[in-house]
């Protein structure tokens, strides 16, 4: 109705004219009525009075007319907002407390939501991300899940698929070691994070290069000239953004390679942030299940169809490789296709939603607090509201006004909260565990702002509706009659505030129990012996020899040994070694291990954790030798068929560790090794996981690990800069071109394995502390207010001979009654809610009685204090003063 909209504007702008017309109309009506009455013989003054009575209150009539006039809504709104702001300005301390409380709640919620949004909700930064899938395999037969592919699967899927538009293979390194290459010929030798891709990967992600071209299938063929693409960041830092870089040559792993393309600035491969170089994967030259795959589905194809399609293609592999028949049968290979985003996010969603829930509870407590404050304030404004009612304010209008004041309050709180969130987010990202994916996608964007606005309005309606509903119906007479002198405040009026306190205490208990459970989890984790000792004193780092050296393993051993000798000569080094991986660095492999006297016909042996180590690995890590002996250089250099197993593996087969000695195990039926030692268990998968059964092979069995070993050094000086400088010199005196990377103490990996737990713990503890603070402030406020309201009554009681102790008891009892109900409600709620935590807990049940009891006691204790302070003030009051005061 354009006419109506027009009239809204006309009325808004011609407000004064309309008001004047209304005045005129009412005046003329009054005159007409007076005239009528005077014609009936009444005097002018009597006629006037009767006429006024007949109209029934000029202001009420005016309000009635204004209410139907188009535009009245907008106009009322503007007036109510102005009025609300004036009210808020008048009560500075109330406003400050309420705004701060809200800002804390809204700010916290916004900060956590930005993380949820960035990590879980935002689509990946590729076009049409919905049709991108990660392609992996599950091998339930040997208990392996989300396995990578081998080039053989890649070729089959590429040629035979009916659901993939295209599939690409990529390589990011195996285990915990990120793929990286030595780059020389650009100043100092460098170790640059790299990515191997087949020609399909970039087109699948719909990434076009900023300069030059992408890889073609020809680049991917063995024997073609070596080509390389570089990322924007690498281009800027190494070539200063020089556009003539295309066609230039850099040495990668000692091979001259031509730069053919530069990737655009916004390009990010999955979650890799400091990628420098992309190389053709050349799948025909590769083998082994070391490669992940990304595919784009044909339009209209679903994930389920693609899974079925891959399931159809898996048996084709068998036709190609009949020799792998046994493995295929045992492993029971099934497809595991997931949306690409799911591949990137992993299982972090659980933690984030728990934190979101926690901070949501804090916001609810904050709302309850503000609602409680508002109820008190609106009680103080009864007279004002009554006057407004008497002057013709309709109940709806007054309630709307109160609600609007709350909304204005919420908006101010929300704006400040947004500032808090902005600051808090920085702290949060700094605190976040390094395995939190998509950290760089976290920020305050449009969706977050919209969320904040929504939460703010919702919060405003939530805490504003209580006083609005409660006092909208104030009768004109009732409020006016009741002056300041109120005897004990009516029970009914207190009921709402009491209910709020109960809710606050209950919610605070839920949060405190949650953080209590996390503390218990953390305690349990710390008390798990990881299997190694004093990890802060163990310094570790990787070096990486050029790949052509792997063809000369004898030379590699000599180089590694030379480095080791130099390191051992550093003062303060008590032990050193080199190995394929460091405990807990996720670098150990899982391979099937055969046991000679426990072979079951036609059954694949279970996969075991495998480390390739040098002598004194166990001494350096502090892993005890339970039976037998350590490896010796003699074993390694003479390639003697020996191995060492963990205690749990020995017990699994032979019950007694020493009975394992001399038994035969092997990686294949042609390669048997004798067990010469049994060592203590190590929680390689993190302290929250069972220690895996582990086999330690001599590192001389693996040319790959000899070419890229991890050195470990035990020294009281470990972790210091000066020590690392000496270590670097020791390495460079063997080969000045070697780059040291992944320089960390063993403690770094140990701490990292608990990072997610400690992050959750810190965040929930913060939420719990906020909840406790707000809850207690709420309780204190209610008790203090009721004491101030009852000072008259207390004065009478004391005048009549009540002892201070009696008064104290009276006040404290009231508060503790609420607390006990709140604790009861909270315990019930916590029992129902903590099971959502169960996947994050370790060594403690979600219903852990100790946590529940301790938290309830602590909360009750703090509540007692919150009641005691105002109670004591009440008893200090002189009865005479209390009585006179009223």
């Amino acid at each position, binding site marked *: 109705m354009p006419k109506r909209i027009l009239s809204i504007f006309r009325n808004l702008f011609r407000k004064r004219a309309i008001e004047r017309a209304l005045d005129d109309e009412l005046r003329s*009506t009054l005159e007409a*009525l007076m005239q009528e009455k005077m014609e009936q013989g009444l005097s002018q003054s009597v006629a006037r009075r009767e006429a006024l009575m007949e109209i*029934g209150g000029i202001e*009420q*009539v005016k309000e009635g007319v204004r209410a*139907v006039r188009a535009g009245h809504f907008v106009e009322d709104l503007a007036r109510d907002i102005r009025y609300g702001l004036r009210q808020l300005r008048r009560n500075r301390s109330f406003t400050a407390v309420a705004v701060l409380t809200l800002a804390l709640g809204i700010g916290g919620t916004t900060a956590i939501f930005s993380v949820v949004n960035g990590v879980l909700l935002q689509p990946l930064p590729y076009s049409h991300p919905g049709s991108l899938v990660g392609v992996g395999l599950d091998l339930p037969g040997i208990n392996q899940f989300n396995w990578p592919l081998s080039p053989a699967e890649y070729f089959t899927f590429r040629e035979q698929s009916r659901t993939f538009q295209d599939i690409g293979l990529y390589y990011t390194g195996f285990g915990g070691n990120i793929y990286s290459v030595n780059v020389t010929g650009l100043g100092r030798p460098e170790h640059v994070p790299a990515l191997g891709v087949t020609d399909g990967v970039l087109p699948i992600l719909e990434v076009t290069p900023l300069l030059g071209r992408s890889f073609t299938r020809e680049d991917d063929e063995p024997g073609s000239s070596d080509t390389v693409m570089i990322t924007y960041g690498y281009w800027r830092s190494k070539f200063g953004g020089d556009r003539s870089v295309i066609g230039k040559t850099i040495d990668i792993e000692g091979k001259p390679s031509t730069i053919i393309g530069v990737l655009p600035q916004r390009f990010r491969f999955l979650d890799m942030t400091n990628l420098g170089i992309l190389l053709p994967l050349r799948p025909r030259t590769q083998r082994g299940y070391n490669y992940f795959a990304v595919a784009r589905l044909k339009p209209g194809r679903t994930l389920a169809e693609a899974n079925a399609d891959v399931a159809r293609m898996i048996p084709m592999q068998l036709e190609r490789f009949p020799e792998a028949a046994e493995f295929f049968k045992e492993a029971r290979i099934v497809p595991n296709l997931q949306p690409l985003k799911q591949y990137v996010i992993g299982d972090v969603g659980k933690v984030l939603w728990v934190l979101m829930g926690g901070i949501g509870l804090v916001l609810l407590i904050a709302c309850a607090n503000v609602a409680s404050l508002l109820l008190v304030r609106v009680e103080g404004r009864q007279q004002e509201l009554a006057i407004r009612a008497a002057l013709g304010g309709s109940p709806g209008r007054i309630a709307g006004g109160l609600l609007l004041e709350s909304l204005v309050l919420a908006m101010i709180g929300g704006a400040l909260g947004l500032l808090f969130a902005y600051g808090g987010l920085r702290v949060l990202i700094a605190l976040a565990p390094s395995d939190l994916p998509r950290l760089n996608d976290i920020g305050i964007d449009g969706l977050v702002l919209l969320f904040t606005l929504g939460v703010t309005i919702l919060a405003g309606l939530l805490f504003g509706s209580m006083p609005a509903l409660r006092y909208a119906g104030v009768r004109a007479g009732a409020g006016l009659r009741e002056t300041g002198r109120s005897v004990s405040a009516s029970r009914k009026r207190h009921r709402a505030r009491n209910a709020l306190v109960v809710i606050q205490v209950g919610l605070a208990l839920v949060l405190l129990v949650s953080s209590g459970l996390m503390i218990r989890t953390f305690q349990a984790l710390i008390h798990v012996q990881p299997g190694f000792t004093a990890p802060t004193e163990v310094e570790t780092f990787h070096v990486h020899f050029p790949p052509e050296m792997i063809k000369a393993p004898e030379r590699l051993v000599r180089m590694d040994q030379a480095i080791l000798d130099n390191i051992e000569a550093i003062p303060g080094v008590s032990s050193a070694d080199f190995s394929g991986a460091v405990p807990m660095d996720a670098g150990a492999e899982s391979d099937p291990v055969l046991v000679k006297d426990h072979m079951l016909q036609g059954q694949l042996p279970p996969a075991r954790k495998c480390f390739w180590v040098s002598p004194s690995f166990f001494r350096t890590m502090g892993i005890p030798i339970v039976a037998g002996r350590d490896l010796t250089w003699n074993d390694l250099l003479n390639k003697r068929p020996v191995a060492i197993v963990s205690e749990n593996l020995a017990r699994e087969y032979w019950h007694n560790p020493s009975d394992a000695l001399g038994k035969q195990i092997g990686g294949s039926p042609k390669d048997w090794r004798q067990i010469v030692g049994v060592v203590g268990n190590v929680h390689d998968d993190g302290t929250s996981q069972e220690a895996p059964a582990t086999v330690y092979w001599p590192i001389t069995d693996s040319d790959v690990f000899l070419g890229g070993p991890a050195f470990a050094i035990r020294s009281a000086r470990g972790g210091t800069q000066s020590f690392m400088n000496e270590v670097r010199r020791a390495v460079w005196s063997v080969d000045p071109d070697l780059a040291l990377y992944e320089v960390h103490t063993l403690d770094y990996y140990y701490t990292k394995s608990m990072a997610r737990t400690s992050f959750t713990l810190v965040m929930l503890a913060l939420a719990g502390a906020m909840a406790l603070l707000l809850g207690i402030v709420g309780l204190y406020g209610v008790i203090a207010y009721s004491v101030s309201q009852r000072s008259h009554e207390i004065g009478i009681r004391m005048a009549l001979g009540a002892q201070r102790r009696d008064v104290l008891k009276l006040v404290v009892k009231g508060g503790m009654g609420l607390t006990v109900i709140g604790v009861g409600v909270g315990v019930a709620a916590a029992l129902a809610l903590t099971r959502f935590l169960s996947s994050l807990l370790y060594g403690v049940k979600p219903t852990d009685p100790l946590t529940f009891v301790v938290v309830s006691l602590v909360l009750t204790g703090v509540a007692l204090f919150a009641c005691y302070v105002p109670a004591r003030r009440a008893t200090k009051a002189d009865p005479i003063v209390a009585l006179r005061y009223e």
Partner: protein
Amino acid sequence: MGQKHTDLLRGTLDLLVLKALSLEPLHGVGISRRITQITKEAFTVSFGSLFPALHRMEERGWVEAEWRSSDNNRRAKYYRLTSAGRAQLKDEARRWNQVVKIMAAAVQST
């Protein structure tokens, strides 16, 4: 008309006002008196209800207002039925008759 019956009788009030205006333009007091007269003094409309109703009907385009001099040379705001208002009156009267018939039948049924 009591405040309590506003909701129930809002339609009725509109109908009465439209009816009152159907013969000639009237000002507020005139409408009030005319309603009292045509309902044989059964209803008196309070100004608290009448003016909001008039302004609402003006918003909807059923009535038009203009200032003119009354019988004794006082200026007053006169309300006049528009053609939309006449249609509305016809419509509401028809509906009202229907309701009366239905209600009468319902009340008389045993």
